[in-house]
């Protein structure tokens, strides 16, 4: 009877081998998938036992820290309250995470490689998170929020050379300390305070989009700042007459002046002449039609571009696009303040688009810098010479055009205003200002927008941009 016993033993060994295989399947091969499973709250519960790192602004203001909570856990508090609510987000066991708390969770919980944690375990070390320093500027943020004065809208300020995001303000704000208790109320509340308008708000850009059109026009070589163009009111664009702001009729004017006075008929015609393909190409170079490469959760980053029915992002060359109206920021464009700030920053940086970054570095509990986030190029959008031509044209807008309210004393500012009509009958507009300063050596680029304002970009948004730039350049 020995032969069958040997075979039986082989079968038992094979069955045990199967057990080893399935154990390795769950512990190694499928482990990632299981950890990400929505039903799995272990990761959140485990991480509640880790002291998450602190989050600080660039100037050292404490934005988030952990305090001991019952049951050997830690609880998050946000000492600066609603100042950076949207940018920092929150991290709670019952709600999950948002904002930087989510996108930098790995650093904040001190996630290491398997081998590192094994060594730490043997050494009996408790896992601790790294401290994260952001690029955010508390002074600038405060200035932006004060300037917005409670009106719904957003301000984004970026350092053009590095892509560092210094201001990310969205009104209405929310206080992450309160979100745990009143999440349902906040989620339903009028004005959607949980929405980060800076990265998620899709608005018609109005005339600020002419900066994109101008970049395409100059960089393609079809136009120069001195090209003479017709600013006649009521010109037919895509078969439908287009009117200038205030019905004003301009004769034959240079392109620079067409930007200074934001002449719709000129830029509409430029757009048509450049065509869908070229406009689409430049938009893609600026980062439209894709989620911006910000270190922020994907769910809280919206792409900008032309949107079709049911909110679907169109193809850049879709036939549904009316390129003439798109060129002046109308048509079906929906853009985020972050995208428009990127446009301004790209021009300011000589046509080189940088990836926007909220985080500067992470420091581990032993005080060593565990990660340093360097400036990273995204794409060259236009030639350096194009960028300097466009800078001159935008400087003229602030010097003598629609954007004079953004002018700073002793510092030359470049910019572009925008006033997108939302409800013409009641004179309600989406107002904008995008720009940068100083013109010679740009250190800050901003985008400001306000929802449902009864003013214009040049009168409402430009002064806010001025205030923010003034504070950041101080």
């Amino acid at each position: 009877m020995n032969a069958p016993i040997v075979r039986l033993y082989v079968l038992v060994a094979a069955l045990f081998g199967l057990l080893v295989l399935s154990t390795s399947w769950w512990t190694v091969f499928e482990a990632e998938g299981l950890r990400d499973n929505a039903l799995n709250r272990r990761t959140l519960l485990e991480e509640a036992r880790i002291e998450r790192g602190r989050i600080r602004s660039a100037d050292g203001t404490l934005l988030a820290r952990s305090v001991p909570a019952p049951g050997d856990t830690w609880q998050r508090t946000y000492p600066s309250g609603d100042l950076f609510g949207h940018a920092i987000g929150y991290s709670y066991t019952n709600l999950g995470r948002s904002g930087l708390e989510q996108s930098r969770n790995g650093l904040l919980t001190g996630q290491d490689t398997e081998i590192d944690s094994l060594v730490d375990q043997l050494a009996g070390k408790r896992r601790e998170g790294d401290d994260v320093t952001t690029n955010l500027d508390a002074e600038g943020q405060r200035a932006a929020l004060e300037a917005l004065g409670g009106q719904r809208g957003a301000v984004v300020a970026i350092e053009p050379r590095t892509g560092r995001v210094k201001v990310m303000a969205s009104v209405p704000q929310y206080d992450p300390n309160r979100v745990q208790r009143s999440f349902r109320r906040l989620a339903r509340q009028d004005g959607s305070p949980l929405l980060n308008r800076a990265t998620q708000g899709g608005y018609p850009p109005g005339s600020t989009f002419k900066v994109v059109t101008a970049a395409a026009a100059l960089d393609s070589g079809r136009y120069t700042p001195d090209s003479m163009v017709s600013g006649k009111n009521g010109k037919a664009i895509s078969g439908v007459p287009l009117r200038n702001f205030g019905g004003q009729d301009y004769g034959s004017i240079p392109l620079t002046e067409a930007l200074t006075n934001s002449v719709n008929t000129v830029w509409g015609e430029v757009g048509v002449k450049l065509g869908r393909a070229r406009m689409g190409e430049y938009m893609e170079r600026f980062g439209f039609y894709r989620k911006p490469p910000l270190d922020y959760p994907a769910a809280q980053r919206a792409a900008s571009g032309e949107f079709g029915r049911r909110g679907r992002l169109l193809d850049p060359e879709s036939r549904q696009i009316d390129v003439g109206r798109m060129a002046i920021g109308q048509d079906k464009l929906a853009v985020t303040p972050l995208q428009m700030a990127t446009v301004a920053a790209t021009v300011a940086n000589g046509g080189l688009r940088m990836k926007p970054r909220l985080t500067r570095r992470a420091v581990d509990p032993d005080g060593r810098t565990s990660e340093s986030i360097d400036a990273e190029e995204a794409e060259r959008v236009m030639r350096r010479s194009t960028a300097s031509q466009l800078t001159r044209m935008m400087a003229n807008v602030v010097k003598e055009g629609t954007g004079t309210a953004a002018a700073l004393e002793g510092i030359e500012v470049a910019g572009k205003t925008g006033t997108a009509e939302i409800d013409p009958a009641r004179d309600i507009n989406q107002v904008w200002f995008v720009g940068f300063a100083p013109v010679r050596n740009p250190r800050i680029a901003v985008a400001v927008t306000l929802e449902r304002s009864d003013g214009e970009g040049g009168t409402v948004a430009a002064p806010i941009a001025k205030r923010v730039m003034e504070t950041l350049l101080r």
Partner: protein
Amino acid sequence: MSARNRELLGLVPASLLVTAGFAAVFIQRQEVLSDVSLTYGAIFLGLCVAAHMILRLTLPYADPYLFPLVALLASFGIVMIYRIDETLAREQAQWFVVGLAFFALTIVFLRDYRKLERYKYTIAAAGIVLLMLPRVPGIGQQVNGAYLGVGIGSISFQPAEFAKIAIVVFLASYLRDTRQVLVIGARRFLGLTIPPLKHFGPLLVVWGAAMLMLVFIRDLGSSLMFFAAFLALLYVATNRLSFVLVGATLFGLGAWFLTSSVGHVNDRIQAWLHPFDEKLYEAPGGSYQVAQSLFAQADGGMFGTGFGQALLKLPSGASILPAPHTDLIYAVTTNELGLAGACALLLIYLLICERGFKTAMLARDSFSTLLAAGLTSVFALQVFVIVGGVTKTIPLTGVTLPFVSYGGSSIVANFVLLALLLLVSDRARRPA
């Protein structure tokens, strides 16, 4: 070195494991190392040496590795349970002592285990009665829909643990008598070897009993364990793969038919197939247990989170992992010691099986061979059923992980099983 000296030496690593394990849990808990862990290790070693002395006196030729391997498992179990719940660990330690007592009693009173053959039908009847006990009103207990427990007053036990030994003893003696006729009287039909009807009858009875178990006990796992052990013995006795295939087919058909009609078993199968289905996950008796088991194992990764580090409780104090000390102890092990620790544990079980089958091969008479092979098979299958369930290899059902899981019946029954194996081994290895 003599067999018994090798055995004595083999107990040292087990005692060291207890000492080191308790030390690790203490460090994790209070960050101070108390010398209590040394005491625990010494007590454990003392108990094991006492059992060893009995073996030295009564079974000098028995396999020297089986007892140390089991001691290793038991010590690992006690540390693991201590880490989950201190009170349970104290109880488990008491059960360990009781188990050793039963172990000694079995060895002393069943020196000539072959007399068991004479009572095979009594033993079979006792086995069936044990299995049916949980359905007796008043003393039967239902856990998660399956009837596996019996409670009389404050004492509760799992009769299936003892029934498995009774049934193996019966099958071994029955097949010793009939194995020849099963083979000789067999006819070839359609390429299959069919045993003669007269002897086929009792086999059908066993099949029927397994099916009845499914209906009455409603536990696919123990039913599978018993029937597979039967098939293993049938195969060893007759060396006919076709018998096994016919039996497996019959079981498969019956199980398929019954699971679709027995609600509880069907729930378990649905939970097995779709553990992450939100409805099943939320449903009482649904897939929560399987899903949590897999989540816990995923957390362990390659090397685990470390002794005493597994997340077992929510901040509110409620348990996140159901039955961590019994059904899911393998999941806790994987969480804390990782894939590496889980493999080590499985390796110990495999080594025990190897010694068991070796004993069966060395035995000089058919009954001894069949008994050792049967006991080893049922032991191996029990490990497969629970670990397979916890790792979603098969549907999860509630049997214990031998010698590791918390549970008095399990410890005592498995020590009796070990005693029988050693009795067979001693006779087999005794110089002629």
